[in-house]
């Protein structure tokens, strides 16, 4: 299925695929609501953004259409297509890249982070990205084919914890380590922060790694602005490296959450965490 999509996207305009998915696939998905994405998205627009019922329902539809579009875009990239990228805050990346020490990038499940790999290329430091270990082989192969020659290494999360050794090795070699920082996967340890006016739990892992090594951290969010354009937002996160460790972790979490909330309020239709994010 994935391979067929990649082959089709070599000659098909992505807008054709957008149209078909928006008219035929998304309505069926919303009707079936098998993974409760409709319910959780509606809850997000109704209760977190305080939209009225009609606006919330319409937002759920557009949100799912946009989600399908970024998934299509991801495969379009594997098929060799290019998107126009504007980068805000590139100077933060350039500055950290020029320093001898490695640094971390925190990503989120908003917009389409995967497109950033093509723009945030470092000439001096290898870019390592921690990715979900259960991805389909075609996705991993596509990533490797497109990203491999850009000095980018994918590190899949594995049961045997081998990814931890690779993360440690990358940071010891002063490389760039990118991790999603909004979803609790693997370790159940979390840090609580106020996000969209309510307490939410964020994974302790990325915060723990950054503070244990005293690393600088960037938040990178890549948002879709039109059919063929994306905007990359690079922001420097802050925490007091001399504070007690627990405080450092909380400060870094709060800094990340502040940037995430800013982008989510700016692009509310590109919130793609389809589960009850605020559950205790």
């Amino acid at each position, binding site marked *: 299925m994935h391979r067929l999509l990649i082959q089709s996207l070599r000659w098909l305009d992505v807008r054709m695929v957008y149209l078909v998915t928006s008219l035929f696939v998304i309505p069926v998905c919303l009707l079936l609501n098998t993974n409760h994405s409709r319910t959780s998205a509606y809850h997000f627009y109704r209760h977190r953004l305080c939209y009225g019922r009609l606006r919330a329902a319409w937002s759920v539809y557009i949100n799912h259409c946009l989600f399908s579009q970024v998934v299509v875009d991801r495969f379009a990239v594997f098929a060799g297509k290019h998107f126009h990228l504007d980068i805000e805050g590139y100077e933060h990346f350039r500055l950290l890249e020029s320093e001898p020490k490695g640094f971390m990038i925190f990503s989120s499940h908003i917009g389409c982070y995967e497109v950033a790999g093509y723009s945030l290329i470092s000439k001096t430091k290898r870019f390592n990205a921690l990715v979900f270990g259960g991805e389909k082989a075609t996705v991993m192969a596509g990533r490797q084919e497109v990203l491999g020659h850009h000095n980018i290494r994918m590190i899949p999360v594995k049961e*045997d*914890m081998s990814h931890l*050794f690779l993360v*440690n090795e990358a940071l010891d070699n002063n490389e760039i380590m990118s991790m999603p920082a909004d979803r609790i996967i693997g370790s159940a340890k979390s840090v609580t922060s106020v996000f969209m006016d309510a307490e939410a739990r964020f994974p*302790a*892992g990325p915060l723990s790694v950054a503070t244990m090594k005293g690393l600088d951290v960037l938040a990178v969010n890549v948002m879709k602005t039109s059919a063929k354009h994306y905007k990359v937002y690079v922001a420097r996160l802050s925490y007091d490296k001399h504070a007690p460790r627990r405080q450092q972790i909380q400060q870094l979490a709060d800094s990340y959450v502040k940037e995430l909330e800013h982008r989510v309020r700016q692009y509310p239709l590109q919130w793609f965490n389809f589960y009850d994010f605020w559950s205790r």
Partner: protein
Amino acid sequence: MNELVKELKDEIIEALNLEEMTADDIDENEPLFGEGLGLDSIDALELIVLLEKKYGIKLADPAEGKKIFTSVASIADYVSKNRKK
């Protein structure tokens, strides 16, 4: 060896923020992960960094790491034989 075990317990408590525990609460033979002390992958990375910083031991092999991190006693045994600091 007993001194090293006690030192490791204190280091683990500090590195993993186990503030509610004392060294006496940890049985050096009980498993660190899953049942026992209940550590998980994030804690494993803390332990990798701890061994590196405190004892100059650089672990690179996941299979070897799994064996070493079985219990405090197994870590102490490995540290005593391989420490560089």
